[in-house]
């Protein structure tokens, strides 16, 4: 299974929706606390001796906390940079002309970026300045700013079924569901007693959302009845950093945590933990499941390694 060593500590990894062998890795120097950042675009090759080929690498002045592939252009990337800027990169252009745009509106670190999979022209960025901003590719400034959280917004994710609906998870322990057409959030509820670090929508059921928090648990909710979770999954030893639903299997989801493991869960089953991978030797902070290849998942962590493996196999196996 291919392993890629990044020079900096990894923060996020995303598969390209256009190419099944391409992925982007967001990294930051010194664990993202201080220093530069780099955005890698890697390509998987069938050649076992050289599993990864780096298509492009872009340096940034501050750490890159998240990356999102554009759904409209196969070479476009959106990078969420820790200095508060949102940078757009085009891998088809020479590196001298990259980044093609640098959007500076957030006043604090931009923690996540997510591209609208349905409209494919807009993307969201969430930041530690308590806001979520909506952007389009053609405009130099944000379309809308959603400011209702009272603490850092760690994640904003579009609903895969409803083009205008998205959810935001914040450090003020609440999850808000927004509709872009509405002036304010349409729903707000506290999924956890502690900070909610991540959330993700189920790809097959538009009302099911999973949240994971500092309290080491992952909860799956139905937004229609948000008082009681559908499932609560404990098993991580530390705060859960990221949760992703599988695009192929309805009940499957993958999570990565500060306990250096990547776990795969099935929330409809009593014993939810399907498999656990502890290949990382540092915090595992980024995980993604490929849309194009079933079962393919990638993870990255602060140990500067990117693993890509098939579900059910050992990520460290050669």
């Amino acid at each position, binding site marked *: 299974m291919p392993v890629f060593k990044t020079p900096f500590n990894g923060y996020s990894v995303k598969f390209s929706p256009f190419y099944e062998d391409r992925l982007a890795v967001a990294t930051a120097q010194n664990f993202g606390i201080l220093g530069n950042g780099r955005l890698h675009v890697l390509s998987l090759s069938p050649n076992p001796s050289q599993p990864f080929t780096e298509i492009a690498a872009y340096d940034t002045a501050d750490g890159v906390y998240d990356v999102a592939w554009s759904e409209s252009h196969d070479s476009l990337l959106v990078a969420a940079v820790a200095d508060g800027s949102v940078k757009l990169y085009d891998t088809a252009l020479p590196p001298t002309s990259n980044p093609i745009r640098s959007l500076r509106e957030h006043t604090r670190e931009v923690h996540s970026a997510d591209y609208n*999979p349905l409209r494919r022209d807009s993307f969201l960025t969430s930041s530690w300045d308590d806001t979520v901003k909506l952007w389009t590719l053609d405009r130099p400034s944000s379309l809308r700013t959603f400011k209702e959280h009272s*603490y850092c917004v760690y994640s904003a994710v579009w609903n895969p*079924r*409803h083009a205008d609906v998205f959810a935001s998870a914040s450090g003020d322990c609440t999850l808000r569901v927004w509709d872009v057409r509405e002036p304010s959030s349409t729903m707000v509820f506290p999924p956890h007693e502690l900070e909610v670090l991540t959330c993700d929508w189920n790809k097959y059921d538009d009302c099911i959302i999973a949240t994971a928090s500092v309290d080491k648990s992952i909860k799956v909710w139905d937004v*229609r009845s948000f008082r*009681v979770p559908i499932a609560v999954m404990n098993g991580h030893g530390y705060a859960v950093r990221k949760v992703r639903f599988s695009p192929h299997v309805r009940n499957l989801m993958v999570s990565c945590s500060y306990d250096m493991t990547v776990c795969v869960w099935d929330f409809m089953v009593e014993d939810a933990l399907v498999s656990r991978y502890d290949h990382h030797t540092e915090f595992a902070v980024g995980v993604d499941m490929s849309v194009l290849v079933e079962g393919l998942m990638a993870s990255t962590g602060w140990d500067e390694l990117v693993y890509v493996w098939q579900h059910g196999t050992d990520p460290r196996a050669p």
Partner: protein
Amino acid sequence: MAKRSDSSRGTVHTLAQYYSPDPSKPKRPIPEVGLHHLPDLIKRGRARHKLLPKEVGFDMSWQITLIQISTTPYSFTYITRTEAPRLGPWTKRQHARCVVVDTQIELFNLCTSKSCNRMAHRRKQQLRTSMATQSPTQNQNQGAESAEPAANVDQQGATEEPVKQSSTPLVFVNSEPMREEQVQNAVKFLSHPKVKGSPVMYRRSFLERKGLTKEEIDEAFRRVPDSAPTVQTGGVTQDGQVKSSSNIQQQAQPQALQPGLSASAGVNTSSATLSRSRFHWSHALIAIGVLAASGAGTAIVVKNSILPRLKSWIRKVVIEEDDEELKKLNRKPTLVEEAAQAAKSAAAAAADVAKASQDMLISKEEEKKLFVEVVSLLDKQVQEMKSMTNALRRIEVQEDLRVTQTNTKQLIVNGKADYDLHSVRSTSPPVSYEPPSSLHPKSYMEPWEVSQVQNSSTQVPYAQGNGEYLNSKVQDSTQSNGDGDDALPWWQRRNVRIREIGNEAEYNGNGSSYGAASNQPPPQRTWVPPQPPPIAMAEAAEAIRRPKPAAQKDQMSDTQSVGNSSDVSDEVTRIPRRSESEGAVKGGSSSSIPSTVEIQEDQELRRE
């Protein structure tokens, strides 16, 4: 077009690889909404226009297309792509040439009412005509095929869409009614004075964290009149379409709420039971109050304790550390106010004491200066006495005429001595005053001062005996008199000494014997009877040496005025000693001397 049909078949074939029941090939899962009909569509060849999913099961890029496909077998929407150069490898593989009709899709999404459906229908026709201009053959086929399904789409898609769209707000909005208990708890929370001081944002986020819905929070804010929440949503711009659609949405919402209410009835009961077992507001308020009070109390106590501590530290430099400990012990803050007052009074007392000690030091220094002066004067007197004795010896050899001269000289000397003694006497009141004051701030004496006192007290036996420590230290007093007797006998002794001085001056011309007598008290701490004077030459040598050590010793005992006074008295005693020794030496001196002594005595008596 043949090509198109071929390609369409190719597409069908390609698509079929996803949906074929061929077990060897993994079957891509299909979302629930309507896509299970897709294979049928494809097989029947109705899917004339290529869908471009990367994977049809769940394809994030093309989800919209899947949604738009209705559940009825013959209706679908076509997706076309405008940016041909941007086509990915998938599309190339599938030979797709399509145009994305995003706006149409958008309309489909938003429209819930019938009028909107009509609009969608019209728009679709427009698009079809535009596409017809681009590729007439396409449109022909499209028109033929899609007329029927398009119509179906309009009807059923539209009906689909309203259901979908009405479900959107229904789904993503809190549809349960307000829980009165939660609202009341929130009202109590907001009415709390501590909470009133906090920013509105914090109050709102606190309530949200407790699980209140927006409506409940708004209701609570409405009920508590003071707090003015501001819903902050920085909306910069919105599309005109979106606004119109939002209006339409709001119309749909009340309709949707009713079915939602029935569905959430069951949820309410569960939430009510949950709220009972949950966090209680009163506990939160009590905790807030206790924490705030304890925080304020510790802050006040710390403030009050720091001030006196600083002052005591300053004092530490001047005073012993015992006082600090005493004050710290005294400073137990049982009550904040009492502690503050006690600290203030202690600080004031300490300041006063410091001032008093300083004054004492100053006065002691002054006395020391005076004593030095006195000693110097006495030295002069001693020297004069020596000269006098020398002169007397000379006179003894000579005739009586010179005796009268010496008498006058003695008178002068006596006058000087008297003057000196007066000056000495003037120092005595301060000396007598000293011990009481020096005793009182006993603790303020520094070690080196204490040792000096010791030294000086040992030198001076008649330290004004009121001082306790002087008493203890004056163990080895050279003089026979006890400390308690110092005052009176000292005066008396002075007079006696004066007389004796006069006697000495008369018949002791020997400065050496004078020096020998003076030798005795300072070096020896115990009283030793005066030794018989040694040989003349030795005495002379000692006498020469005498004034220097005497002067040095006087300088050493600086700070203690008691020491000064004791030195003064010592000097005075020395003089009589010398005079006595001189007198002894000159036992058989001339008769003129006794006469002069008598004269002196008379003079002294008169003066006294």
